[in-house]
């Protein structure tokens, strides 16, 4: 009984210290932010209906000067190095845009890229976003472009494909032997970090709100809001976990065996202790 009381006192102090230094301190160091908004409520949804054929026309006329459209047999007009030099960043191929990105976001991005991506603060004093805005197009035209992009988009993409497409132009993934296709350090003003260990340095919880809106956690950052829809963002985070915490499954599988063994060992050692101490007490 007395020993149980001593154990309770020791545990109480230890747990208080743990609480203060871990959960409590972390809630202060990383204050709560609003949850991720996959409806992009700060942007105006497009109310018009789109026409796929009209969309195809518009894209071929307006976009393929800079963007590739592999699924229609159109490659990126410039090679990576030249594109990097001309624009600061490589214009992505549009074949997968309809799968990866949210509709409202896409529509608004086409109209005003810097605003939708929340990087207007980086394009001041005469410096403009390499992609011109198409705010002069009618709503139905914008809707048609989005409808067309969705129609050509693949049904399925692997986690890695989503990552390489949405993030791989700027971010390295050293541990999966993936390197950024462009060097955006000048365009961004700083070098985007390698993401190999990002799942462990930030955690799933943080990344969920961060990727959805980087400005929430890092106000003033050069990283654009990429506009991923919820499914694609989850795929990116899963991929980050596959690369940065690849042993998670093995760890969780081994745990019950080790803990089970130690629980058994505790029981057996208690029984032996009792036998030995019964002789002296």
């Amino acid at each position, binding site marked *: 009984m007395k020993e149980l009381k001593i154990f309770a006192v020791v545990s109480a102090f230890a747990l208080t210290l743990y609480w203060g230094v871990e959960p409590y301190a972390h809630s202060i160091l990383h204050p709560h932010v609003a949850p991720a908004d996959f409806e992009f409520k700060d942007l105006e949804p497009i109310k018009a209906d789109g026409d796929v054929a009209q969309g195809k026309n518009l894209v071929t006329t307006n976009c393929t000067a800079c963007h590739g459209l592999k699924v229609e047999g159109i490659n990126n007009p410039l090679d990576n190095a030249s594109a990097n030099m001309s624009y600061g960043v490589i214009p992505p191929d549009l074949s997968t845009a309809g799968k990866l990105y949210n509709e409202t976001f896409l529509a608004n991005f086409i109209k005003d890229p810097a605003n939708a991506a929340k990087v207007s603060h980086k394009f001041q004093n005469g410096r403009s976003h390499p992609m011109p805005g198409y705010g002069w197009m009618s709503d139905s035209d914008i809707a048609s472009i989005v409808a067309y992009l969705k129609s050509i988009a693949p049904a399925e993409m692997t986690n890695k494909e989503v990552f390489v497409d949405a993030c791989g132009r700027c971010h390295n993934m050293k541990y999966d032997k993936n390197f950024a296709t462009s060097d955006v350090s000048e365009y961004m003003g700083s070098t985007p970090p390698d993401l190999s260990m990002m799942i462990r340095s930030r955690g799933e919880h943080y990344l969920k709100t961060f990727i959805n809106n980087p400005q929430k956690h890092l106000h003033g950052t050069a990283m654009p809001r990429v506009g991923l829809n919820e499914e694609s963002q989850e795929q990116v985070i899963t991929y980050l976990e596959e690369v940065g915490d690849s042993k998670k499954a093995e760890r969780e599988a081994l745990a019950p065996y080790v803990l089970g*063994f130690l629980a*058994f*060992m505790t029981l*057996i*050692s208690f*029984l*032996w202790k009792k*036998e*030995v101490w*019964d*002789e002296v007490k």
Partner: protein
Amino acid sequence: MADKSRRAFMGKILAGTAGVGAVASLYAMKKTWDPLPSVMSAGFTTVDLSPLEVGKLSIIKWRGKPIFLLKHGSDIERNEARDIVTQDGSYTVVIGLCTHLGCIPEWKKDETKFKCACHGGEYDIYARETFGPPPRPMDIPPFSVKGSSIVLGEEGPEYKKMLTLAKS
């Protein structure tokens, strides 16, 4: 006394349990010492033999060792036990280390033989020992044939056949 024997029994169970734990720990430690998966997967090298010139020795690296690649001309007799055959012809493919003490022999094209400078050992075009201290032919690495290429490190059916031929 019953107490003493129960105590001894519990003691033995405890020792046994601890032993199981110790063995499991030793197993994990043994596995940590194993060559890394990235090392083991790197132990396979694909070599395209089609660009080789007849009679001209090529040397590549496999698992840190030099590999001799030598294309046979049509005048060279086929040797089932020693030749590696792809769709483009027959080749001598061996680990380029003298089986005497491990020096790298030199290919003497004019004499159609390999000569080892260290102790004078000599090998024929099939890399079989013909003169001097080498106790056996130069070793053929595990391989499998894939069209014009071979994959070193993989034990293909042709390799396994050569092993049985070498034994007989």
